[in-house]
């Protein structure tokens, strides 16, 4: 396995940038996830690493080698396709052996490695089957074994779990992650599923419209989103737009003064609040930096959790998520409540959103 470096990698089609100045450094054995909505450039970036898309500018380096101008077949990357792309006319074992055969590995040695790779994904007994005789989950594992058998420098996963049913997906996520860790595989995965990204990654890259918005750990992205897009895309946020009057004071469109702590210059701004960081109580929350009376407008019962939409003013709405406890406070629609949160949890981003107040960006 090797380190992977992308430097200012761009792909332009006419005036449209499918990827723009993507600079990433994936350490040896690291699991990096490219996360973003469809069309954000994550797949283009992956395909540039694999060598199927020729970059307009920038470079791809695997280990010590600059592979930017190398064709796909000389790059030594193992790619698991979304559709698996197993060769239908070859058996499972022949599929897995293909990469070794291309590298002219002697038959006996190749057989041994194929058996090992199939064993790794627990399919040792199905080597003689044809791909169409396998279930979707088994095909997915064959694709993984095929991508690993020839010991690639980098493992690339293109939405590898999107064709599996929900329950299987949960298991395979953990399985792939464990395998990746035990083999110390340098891995880049593309997904639009944030839960998948959060469970599997060492580090995440959030992309939007071809550009990298933020790179960081799960915690970095969640606690310190770099911008409004990341705040809405990773986890949930409710957005309140208004004006930043001083670095410590934000006034909502409805005129409510919110205590915050930011380094931004005063001007139009938006506050993003994590619903689970907002406290709801029947009476005033005097120990909170922010405490406002409001009226419950909507209750969404999610089982273990309850979403409350609380209106603070005709123009301001905050979403709170509270645990469903037996002895807990559980207000009904129309009830007067107090909501509170700390200044530290008040994330401020420049620019007032045109979709102020009740806006909630939520992927999927």
């Amino acid at each position: 396995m090797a380190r992977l470096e992308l430097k200012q990698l761009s792909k332009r089609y006419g005036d449209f940038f499918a990827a723009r100045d993507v600079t990433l450094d994936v350490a040896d054995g690291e699991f990096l996830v490219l996360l973003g909505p469809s069309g954000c450039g994550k797949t283009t970036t992956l395909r540039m690493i694999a060598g199927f898309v020729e970059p307009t500018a920038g470079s791809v380096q695997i280990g010590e080698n600059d592979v930017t101008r190398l064709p796909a077949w000389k790059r030594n990357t193992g790619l698991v396709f979304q559709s698996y792309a197993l060769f239908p006319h070859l058996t499972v074992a022949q599929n897995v052996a293909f990469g070794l055969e291309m590298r002219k590995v002697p038959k006996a040695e190749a057989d041994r490695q194929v058996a090992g790779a199939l064993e790794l994904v627990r399919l040792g007994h199905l080597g003689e089957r044809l791909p169409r005789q396998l279930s979707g989950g088994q095909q997915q594992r064959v694709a993984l074994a095929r991508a690993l058998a020839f010991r690639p420098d980098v493992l690339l996963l293109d939405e590898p779990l999107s064709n599996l049913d929900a329950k299987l997906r949960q298991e395979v996520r953990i399985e792939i992650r464990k395998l990746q860790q035990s083999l110390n595989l340098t891995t880049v995965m593309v997904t639009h599923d944030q839960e998948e990204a959060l469970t599997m990654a060492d580090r995440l890259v959030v992309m939007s419209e071809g550009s990298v918005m933020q790179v960081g750990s799960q915690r970095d992205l969640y606690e310190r989103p770099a911008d409004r897009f990341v705040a809405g895309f990773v986890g949930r946020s409710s957005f309140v737009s208004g004006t930043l009057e001083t670095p410590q004071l934000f006034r909502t469109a409805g005129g409510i003064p919110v205590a915050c702590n930011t380094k931004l210059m005063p001007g139009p701004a938006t506050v993003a609040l994590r619903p689970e960081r907002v406290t709801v109580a029947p009476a005033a929350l005097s120990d909170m930096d922010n405490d406002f009376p409001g009226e419950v407008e909507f209750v969404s019962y999610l089982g273990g959790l309850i979403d409350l939409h609380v209106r603070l003013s005709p123009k301001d709405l905050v979403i709170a998520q509270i645990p469903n406890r037996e002895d807990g406070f559980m207000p009904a629609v129309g009830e007067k409540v107090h909501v509170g949160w700390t200044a530290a949890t008040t994330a401020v981003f420049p620019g007032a959103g045109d979709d102020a107040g009740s806006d909630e960006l939520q992927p999927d």
Partner: protein
Amino acid sequence: MTAVGSIDTRAIGRWALIGVAGLTLFYILLPLLSITWLSFYSQEIPSFPPEGYTFRWYFSILSNDRFVDGLLLSIQLGVSATAIGLAVSVPAALCLSRFRFPGREALNNVLLLPLMVPGVVLGTALYVFHVEAEIATGGELHILGSTLGLLSGHVLVVIPWVVRLVMASLAGFDRTLEEAAQNLGADRWTTFRRITLPGILPGVVAGAMFGFVASFGNLEMSLFLVGPGRTTLPIAILQYLEWKIDPSIAAVSVVQIVLIGAAMLVTDRFVKISRVV
């Protein structure tokens, strides 16, 4: 409408369908069946009812050099034309279905043209071309009536079939398989040989099959291109018919039918033709 009424309508519809299908099948098979029957008549002038049955017409064609030579030439032509046709058409089909370039539609139509143009027109055109070519080279190029000239005509007949059927196969071929092969270390040629070709094989085999049959049975175009003493089987049959009508013609036809039928059956064992055509 009542429930009973609707069942009746459906039953009538089904019987009508079976009736029409049966009639059509009978209409298609009638000439084949009657010519097979005729080939066993014992009398020399075919008339109904037969006076008796014999195998002698089958033996008589074996002793007729024109038929035997014609059959051999037709097979040689068919096989070579198909081989050359494949070598030209498979790359052509790949280009036509994969790349967008100016004149693509036009090229596509030109490659299908030999199928649309009547054989007589195609034959005349080639004949005139051969004459002009000989004049232009001052008689250096002996193409008129040569086997090479005949073969080039037959290649034209094969091309549209292979192009059409290979393109149909390519339309259903998943190109991520090629990317997968390249990712595993296969260069373009290896990818084509190991992954693409097996994937489009049904189309290639069916195209070769139909191309061969089209070449083997071609009469009109070949009439213009054969040289003295070198005739294909269909031409040998036609020439024989000018002098005689006896059941040996029927016997030759049956041999042709059996050959083509056998080729179809053998092909179908390897590739389900019905899945492509």
